[in-house]
């Protein structure tokens, strides 16, 4: 249970709201429509493909009670393969999560 009083809790919520916004607003707000140099644009094009796997990988392989479970590794691999093959985010999600929750349910029943 959280023992902080209501004032402290609201202080945390408001500071986190402002801080989160400022992080997201940083470049959009300050750089705006000023042109960025070519080398910066080239780097920034790789942001999605650099950040999202870095977020996902510890959740899939990393520490924790379900770390590197065979079922999870197979589902992650299937998601990537279907995504590359169909070029569709939707089918990749349907394949990966479908197998995970489908097989998960079967394994729990047995």
């Amino acid at each position, binding site marked *: 249970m*959280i023992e902080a009083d209501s004032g402290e809790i*609201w202080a945390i*919520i408001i500071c986190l709201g402002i801080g989160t916004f400022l992080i997201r607003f940083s470049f959009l707000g300050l*750089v705006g429509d000023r042109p960025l140099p070519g080398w910066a644009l080239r780097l920034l094009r790789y942001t999605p493909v650099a950040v999202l796997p870095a*977020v996902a990988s510890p959740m899939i392989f990393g520490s924790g009670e379900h770390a590197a479970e065979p079922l999870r590794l197979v589902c992650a691999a299937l*998601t990537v393969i279907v995504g590359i093959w169909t070029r569709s985010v939707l089918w990749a999600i349907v394949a990966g999560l479908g197998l995970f929750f489908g097989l998960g349910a079967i394994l729990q029943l047995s």
Partner: protein
Amino acid sequence: MSPSTRQFLTGVRDGLPFHIVIWPFAAIFGAIAAQAGLNVAQVMGFSVLMIAGSAQLTALQLMTEQAPTVIVILTALAVNLRAGMYSASITPHLGKAPLLTRAFAAYLLYDQPFALSSVKFEEEPELSLSEKLGYFFGVAIPIGLGWYAMTLFGALLGDRMPSDIGLEFAVPITFLAVIAPLLKSLAHLASAVTAMVLALVLDVLPFGTGLLVAACVALFVGAGVETWVEKRKARR
């Protein structure tokens, strides 16, 4: 129908698969927060002011451990620092928008709208600013509304919500699904593999800083491989 409205609807449609994951995630956050002793207004305050699932859960976890206020704030913000990279990356596309529009886009610059918009804008560079804004908000607004609504649902249900349904695995799966179609060049592949391996190795670093280091190195690997491939092609 105007081109920007059409892009808004395309964004809404492209965002649909993410509702599968976001709805239960929000409901679980709401339930855990209510069980930890927050009232409904406070739980909603988190989801409305932040729209940042992992940072919200981090803050909640630390508050439950009675961590000092400053530690809670700094740690939860550190978890969300990757949004600074999103901000830099989306600026070349949305930077010409009026200040208030940019502020609203920044408020909604969470993982899914950023990821889908980046992919879209790279594949269709001819889109106008208003079309790009339409697409971005088309992804961001419905998922955001779902985030609010399901947080409320979870907070009201409280302890009748099952909290371990394997959801902590569902979110990374959707991230992999977004980037898989992007792995069409050697540079993208090298960047993604670098990020995955380094993030695992650096997972021991505190406050999610390992993720940031891994992602920054992966940016340079991607751009470096791209330059190298271009040079090789030029020499032939």
